[in-house]
């Protein structure tokens, strides 16, 4: 007899479902039972709040007392320590102060010595340095002064030369103007005198002389007309 494979799987499935269902029911039962027992025991374990308060108060009272005792012990021990060590602390402080003072004084005296030595050496050093620098500056200064002196001399000489030239030129110009003025004045005076002094007879004589000269130069000749321009220039 052959059993269908699918039927076997189905039976196995149904069986598994049943087992899971039964387990679930069993678990629910156990839980219900525990709740019941807890509910029952809870009534018996209930503590009165007043009693709890009293217990807490007593407990806190004990803690406070213990703390007070410990504090007192600490205070008393610290008082003893204070009394015992105050002198030594004072002494230590004084000692430290004294040591520090000494160190400070030593340091000061050392610094003083060094400073004094440095200060004593400074003038010599500065003197040397300054002397050296002064010598350099002195040389430079002399060179510059010499250069400036020469330059100034050149400038002054140039200026003098220029002024001399300008003066000479102006003098020449003025002298020429003056000479021309003098000649012009003399000319005018001479002309006036001549105009006044030459009478008609003398004028006629001068004209006749001019005509003679013109004749001598062939001004009146027709032959010369061809070269008229040359005659004009003469």
């Amino acid at each position, binding site marked *: 007899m052959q059993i269908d494979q699918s039927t076997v799987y189905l039976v196995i499935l149904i069986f598994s479902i049943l087992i899971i269902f039964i387990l679930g029911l069993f678990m629910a039962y156990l839980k219900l039972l525990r709740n019941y027992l807890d509910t029952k025991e809870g009534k018996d374990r209930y503590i009165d709040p007043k009693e709890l308060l009293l217990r807490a108060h007593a407990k806190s009272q004990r803690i406070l007392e213990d703390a007070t005792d410990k504090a007192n012990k600490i205070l008393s021990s610290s008082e003893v320590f204070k009394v015992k060590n105050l002198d030594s602390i004072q002494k230590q402080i004084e000692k430290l102060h004294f040591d520090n003072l000494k160190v400070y004084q030593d340091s000061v005296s050392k610094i003083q010595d060094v400073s004094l030595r440095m200060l004593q050496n400074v003038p010599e050093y500065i003197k040397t340095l300054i002397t050296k620098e002064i010598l350099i500056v002195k040389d430079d200064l002399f060179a510059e002064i010499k250069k400036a002196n020469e330059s100034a001399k050149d400038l002054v000489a140039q200026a003098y030369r220029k002024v001399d030239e300008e003066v000479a030129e102006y003098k020449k110009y003025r002298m020429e103007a003056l000479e021309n003025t003098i000649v012009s004045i003399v000319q005018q005076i001479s002309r006036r005198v001549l105009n006044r002094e030459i009478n008609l007879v003398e004028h006629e004589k001068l004209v006749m002389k001019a005509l003679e000269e013109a004749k001598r130069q062939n001004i*009146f000749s027709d032959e010369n007309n061809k070269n008229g321009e040359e005659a004009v220039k003469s």
Partner: protein
Amino acid sequence: MEYEIIGNIKTLDSAEVLKQELEVLLNSLYSGKEEFESVLRTKVRSSFADFIRRKISQEDVRIDLFLKDFIKKLDSVPVVKLILAFEPSEETVNRIYSYIVSACKREVFLDLGYSPDIIGGAIIIYRGKYKDLSFKYVFEREFEEEKKKILEFMKI
């Protein structure tokens, strides 16, 4: 001598006056004989009017041609321009004229100018030729040459 009257004209001014008279007469000829006579009486100098009348009286003379020739003759006479330092007298002008005519060997008109600046002597301009023979020219040349001496003299 047809144009003997020209010999009596010495200056360009006189020649210009004569030329104007000739032109007036020539113009009047075209306005008739009466007009010509009127002009001859009123606008021409008497001595020149007599000269014209003598010419008209000659039978072989055509007065219009004579007047035209006369004007042409006047225009052909060369002019000697003289610039003088003084205003000459008539006698002086005559002497100058005579000298120039003999020098030129022909009739000329004198054009006289007056410029006191030239001091003395004359500036002569004849047929394009110019000659400064004035005292001014000599004077300035001498002054230029003697400038240094004058200045030295002035310094003293």
